[in-house]
């Protein structure tokens, strides 16, 4: 790079070396509409075919090998799950007591029956929608407020001075320990539970948003400023889209934590909801019901994080990702 200043005739040599291939258009000719991306059309005549063949063969071999590895992988995954289920069934149906008391746990078959039965009841769906509603309200609120506060703290020095100490003091307090406060503070239990869910998701979202704002390269902001954009334009066209990858990291974590907290809060102070039902099943000695509740919570949590993940991938398609990401469309 620095050599360039004292380079007497290098460019001429380079051109002379690369021109001889007649099949590629000479990129040095000022052609306003090149069919080939400039710079990638470089003249490397005969070598191309041989190299490509090797590449194709290699790729096919790689693909076959990849498919076999994939099949083996799936087989291993399925068998590990089946083995775990089988072990559970054997231990519980034979009432095994090896210090751990499997005799008190329901068998796989019992759980399956209970699950099937519950799927036919209205209560199951009422609980499901109650918990989901709390998540949507609490997590949604945390998303909106968390991103707003994160951007404020990341972009404005005054904002950071005002808000950050408050955040740092409150952040270490686990959301679930706020249950008594929530009960005292809010008129209804419902609002208290949504509050707990909100607090749980809020902090991870604020923190990752703030990090994303501060890590944003300045070049895009400067580009927009010199094109005549103001603060609002920078916010809308640079900051908000630019922080999305980081924000979605926070949303993923937040979604997980808010499920933990909504279930715990329901167990403590709920009147319905999946968490409440699971705990109630325990108190009325309906152990298969407990496991059904646990599985339901697991599935709900997985669905939420999967949809956050999917949304995030769709919103950040522009990110350079490995594989097809770097390949051009033509």
């Amino acid at each position, binding site marked *: 790079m*620095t050599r360039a200043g004292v380079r007497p005739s290098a460019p001429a040599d380079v051109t002379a070396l690369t021109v001889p291939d007649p099949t590629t258009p000479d990129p*040095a000719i000022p052609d*306003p509409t090149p069919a080939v991306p400039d710079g990638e059309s*470089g003249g490397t005549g005969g070598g191309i075919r041989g190299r490509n063949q090797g590449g194709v063969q290699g790729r096919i071999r790689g693909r076959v090998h990849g498919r076999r590895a994939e099949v083996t992988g799936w087989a291993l995954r399925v068998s590990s799950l089946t083995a775990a289920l089988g072990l559970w069934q054997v231990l519980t149906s034979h009432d095994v007591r090896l210090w751990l008391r499997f005799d008190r746990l329901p068998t796989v078959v019992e759980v399956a029956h209970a699950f099937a039965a519950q799927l036919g009841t209205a209560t199951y769906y009422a609980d499901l929608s109650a918990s989901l509603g709390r998540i949507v309200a609490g997590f949604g609120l945390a998303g909106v407020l968390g991103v707003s506060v994160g951007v404020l703290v990341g972009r404005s020095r005054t904002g950071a001075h005002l808000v950050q100490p408050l955040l740092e003091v409150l952040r270490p307090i686990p959301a679930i320990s706020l249950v008594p406060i929530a009960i005292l503070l809010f008129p209804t239990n419902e609002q208290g539970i949504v509050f707990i869910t909100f607090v749980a998701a809020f902090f991870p979202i604020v923190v990752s948003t703030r990090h994303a704002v501060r890590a944003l390269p300045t070049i895009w902001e*400067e580009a927009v400023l010199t*094109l005549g954009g103001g603060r609002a334009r920078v916010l809308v066209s640079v900051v908000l889209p630019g922080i999305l990858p980081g924000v979605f990291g926070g949303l993923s974590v937040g979604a997980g934590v808010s499920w933990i907290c909504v279930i715990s809060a329901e167990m403590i102070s709920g009147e319905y909801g999946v968490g409440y039902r699971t705990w109630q099943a325990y108190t009325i000695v309906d152990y298969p019901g407990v496991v059904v509740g646990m599985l339901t919570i697991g599935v709900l949590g997985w669905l939420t994080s999967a949809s956050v993940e999917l949304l995030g991938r769709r919103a950040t398609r522009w990110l350079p990702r490995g594989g097809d990401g770097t390949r051009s469309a033509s």
Partner: protein
Amino acid sequence: MTAPEQTVRAGVRLDGLDVGYQGRPVLRDLSLTVRAHEILVVLGPSGCGKSTLLRTIAGLQPPVTGQVLVDGEPVRGPGMGRALVFQDDGLLPWRTVARNVELPMAIRGVSRTERRRVAQEWIERVGLAGSERRLPRQLSGGMRQRAQLARTLAGEPRIVLMDEPFGALDTQTRATMQRLLVDVWRQTDATVVFVTHDVDEALALADRIVVLSLTGPAVGEVVDVPHPRTTPTDAPETDDPDRRRLREHVLAALTDRERTH
């Protein structure tokens, strides 16, 4: 004061400019005039403050003392009319080529149909037709610089500040881009301040060349290029003895300044 024709076009005057970061001076007592509708090339080694100079003209870096005057008006911050073209691309990676080119017009509040039309014109002019809907990451380095050029000029800036825009490109792409720049520049009213460390690039583009040094008074020699834009960088060894002498002269000015300070 100035001829009416000159007030229409932009001219830049730098007046006793001191620029620094955290007390460390980068440019000292720099005075310079950029004429309306010329290509002024600022030539200098890495670290001599070339980029800082552009950022100061753009209004991104306020000077410690002195001022930048554009058409007699002091610059107080970044704004429309002084667009910066970056070496690593300043394209917004989440916007397609077309939406990047539309950006300056969107900022000015141009209607959607109008900005689509104008953006398409610029995209075709820089040779990117067919790539309108691609994302920056799907383009080669040369194509990204084409897109950046289109976006910059679509904003109809009076001054285009180019910070080694072709520095990361291979020699051939570079020559193509230099020709393209001159070509589209001729169709506009813009004044160009172009920063580079490459003598041949300077000779290929400039009406005048300003040589900067690492230390000392920032402006060294100002060299007029008699027949601007007649030598492509990929063929600097022309038969023209005047041309060769000029090249030797600029090189000497550059190396002299590096040696004496």
